[in-house]
């Protein structure tokens, strides 16, 4: 079931009403209802993979208890590694097997040997990358004695499978979510209102911004014609806006939905395109994944301690794995590597923690220096997105070479690009970023809209947003991060 589907529009109010009117008596009932709803939500996509989800959940649940009960460090380590290997094994099998099989066959064909790779015709279970990471972090936290294992199977299952975060995150931590699931939720009016506003904003980002920009990004990226260099630059900007609107929109819907049930999820985006350097960008983009890699990979590897070559290697490993997490394609690895190259100078010069505050905090407009830094960072990010968006490395290099042509400074043009609907999309996107700018000190930009307004202008704004979103809803694209 997709968030942007009729099914979800029926599903959400039904679960909400049952939750607050039928299952509101006890914690057990609240969690039992949420886990049933979550499994229904997942099974409506493909019920066969529900068994995999339940298996993965059970594995980590029991392993957590065993690790906690183990007397010796070596036994704890054994069970932790076993759980990680099995979890990663499933992820590797479904997500990466074909990639390795084909890559291996290609490699040995370079030596004149012929190999017919035995590839699998399996579809990637939705959300496997996300729930596997939930489980792994839980096990590592128990091993490190940061948390105690959850004894209640339903509570633990809900931590892994709570439907708003099940298929595309945010990647939760047991330390953050489990305590919320262990106590009965009381209805909180302001939280529920905030939730609805965040859901509305998420839908607007996804349907109006991302899906409209997707039309033009696809037109240019998939176009068989030869366009000017400037057109390809425009294409990469459209994709940058698309992927931000798509994924942060999804996250807003997830966070807003969770709030309706009295649960706070981890923030996933904090206005990444207003970042002044790459390090800040990575603190603001897909925060739950970046922090996961920081805590469970970068720091265990040694972080920024040790010899220079160790520091460099750690950075490359983290970005490479992070890229590969996105999908079994060399483009994601190259994208990760490029980000490592971007990140490295600031880390080596110890300038990676320069911009920890919000840009132009307390001010209306940024300084010229901030504008320049944000522009450079955005340009670098867009450049990297080209690799991310391309089907293969050759296509990415082809795209770069088309940008770096003599026509780079000519007027952008491709059939269908110069139209009224493009102009409307550009204006809407600009308004969207203005709202984001003025709301950048809030959890989500729309939270600031109408705070101190009368009901009439406030509700009129909500209605306008609802109607604009509904207007665009028959041109829906699937969420990009569902494939990961």
């Amino acid at each position: 079931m997709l968030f942007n589907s009729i099914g979800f529009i029926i599903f959400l109010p039904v679960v909400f009403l049952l939750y607050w009117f039928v299952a509101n008596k006890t914690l057990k009932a609240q969690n039992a209802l949420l886990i049933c709803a979550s499994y229904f939500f997942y099974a409506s996509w493909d019920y066969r993979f529900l068994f995999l989800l339940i298996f993965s959940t059970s594995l980590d649940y029991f392993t957590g208890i065993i690790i906690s009960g183990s007397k010796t460090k070596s036994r704890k380590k054994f069970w932790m590694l076993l759980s990680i290997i099995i979890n990663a094994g499933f992820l590797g099998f479904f997500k990466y097997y074909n990639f390795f099989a084909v890559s291996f066959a290609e490699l040995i064909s370079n030596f004149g040997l012929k190999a017919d790779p035995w590839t699998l015709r399996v579809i990637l279970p939705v959300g496997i990358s996300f729930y596997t990471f939930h489980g792994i972090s839980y096990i590592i936290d128990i091993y490190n004695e940061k948390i105690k294992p959850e004894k209640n199977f339903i509570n633990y299952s809900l931590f892994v499978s709570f439907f708003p975060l099940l298929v595309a995150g945010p990647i939760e931590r047991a330390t953050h979510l489990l305590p919320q699931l262990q106590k009965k939720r009381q209805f909180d009016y302001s939280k529920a209102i905030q939730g609805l506003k965040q859901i509305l904003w998420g839908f607007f980002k996804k349907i109006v911004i991302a899906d409209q920009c997707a039309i033009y990004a696809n037109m240019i990226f998939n176009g068989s014609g030869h366009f000017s260099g400037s057109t390809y630059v425009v294409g990469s900007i459209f994709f940058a806006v698309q992927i931000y609107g798509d994924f942060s929109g999804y996250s807003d819907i997830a966070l807003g939905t969770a709030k309706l049930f009295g649960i706070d999820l981890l923030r996933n985006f904090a206005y990444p395109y207003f970042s002044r350097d790459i390090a800040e960008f990575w603190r603001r983009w897909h925060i739950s994944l970046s922090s996961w890699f920081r805590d469970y990979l970068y720091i265990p590897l040694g972080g920024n301690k040790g010899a220079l070559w160790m520091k460099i290697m750690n950075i490359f490993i983290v970005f490479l794995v992070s890229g590969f997490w996105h999908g079994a394609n060399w483009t994601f690895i190259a994208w990760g590597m490029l980000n490592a190259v971007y990140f490295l100078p600031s880390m080596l010069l110890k300038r990676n923690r320069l911009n920890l505050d919000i840009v132009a905090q307390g001010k209306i407009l940024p300084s010229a220096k901030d504008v320049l830094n944000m522009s450079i960072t955005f340009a670098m990010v867009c450049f990297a997105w080209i690799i991310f968006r391309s089907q293969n490395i050759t296509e990415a290099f082809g795209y770069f070479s088309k940008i770096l042509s003599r026509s780079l400074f000519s007027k952008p043009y491709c059939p269908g690009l110069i139209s009224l609907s493009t102009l409307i999309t550009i204006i809407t996107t600009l308004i969207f970023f203005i709202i984001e700018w003025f709301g950048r000190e809030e959890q989500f930009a729309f939270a600031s809209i109408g705070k101190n307004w009368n009901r009439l202008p406030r509700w009129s704004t909500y209605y306008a947003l609802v109607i604009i979103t509904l207007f665009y809803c028959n041109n829906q694209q699937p969420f990009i991060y569902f494939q990961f």
Partner: protein
Amino acid sequence: MKLFFKKTAIFLSILAGYMVLMYFTNLLIIEKKSIGWKNCEILIAGDSHTQKALNPKLFHSAVNISQVSEPYYITYWKLKKYLSQHIVDTVLLGFSYHNLSAFNDKKLSDKVWGDEMLRRIYSLETVSLSNDIEINKYELFKIQFKNMYLYPNIDPFYFKGGYSNSNRSNISDSIKASKRHFYNNQSEEKVSKIAAEYLDSIIVLCNKKRIQVVAVTTPMNYSYLNKVPLKFIQAYQSKKESLEKQGIIVLDFGYQKYPDDFYLNSDHVNKKGSEEFTKQILDVLDYRDNHLKNAH
């Protein structure tokens, strides 16, 4: 919690009220607003073949309501609508091999054409839709919802049609065009029963109103004609004979030899070709009129 439900209910009620208001406003627009079709003696109807081939400006009094990729069932509804408000003498109706192909039957459910076709018909007529026509009801609902419930759509007549052409010429698309018209993946399409039925309905409709139907086969390039499967040539010939038996004039210019630069692509004439073809049709119609006058 009471306050939350109260406020949500008020918010949703206002939204629903607004949508109902928009629905009735749009119904009124569809009912009362003029489509913009003018009165004429000759009405040109059909798909892109007649849309590009017959320039109404060259006629004494003609209107072209043809539209790209239009199947006969939509032409039927459009004619019904036009003829309920206007009186005409003659209907020039596009009639070609591809009009009889079953690929037309899928146009209300098809991924490529579905959206556009449903957008055209939502304000036209869907009640009398044959059960044999596949229709993507969910898409139709979405289009109706967008166009009827959200804002006052002051121009809902996407089915209006009209002559359009250009001077471009590139006949290299014959394989693509023939595949689109006559093949479903690798296998040949069926001959459409629905198309034949709706063609008959058009004839009945015009006969009732004493309108002369002239079926027109517009010129097509040989590169395309060579690729028309025999099944469709036979179906066309048989339908042609049946139409002629009913007193319908069939002007078959399909194999008319035009220079390549008279074609927009392999199965459509361009502006140049359209001028030539319109003149030819005018000559035939003049001849018919003179013949009729003499007979009287």
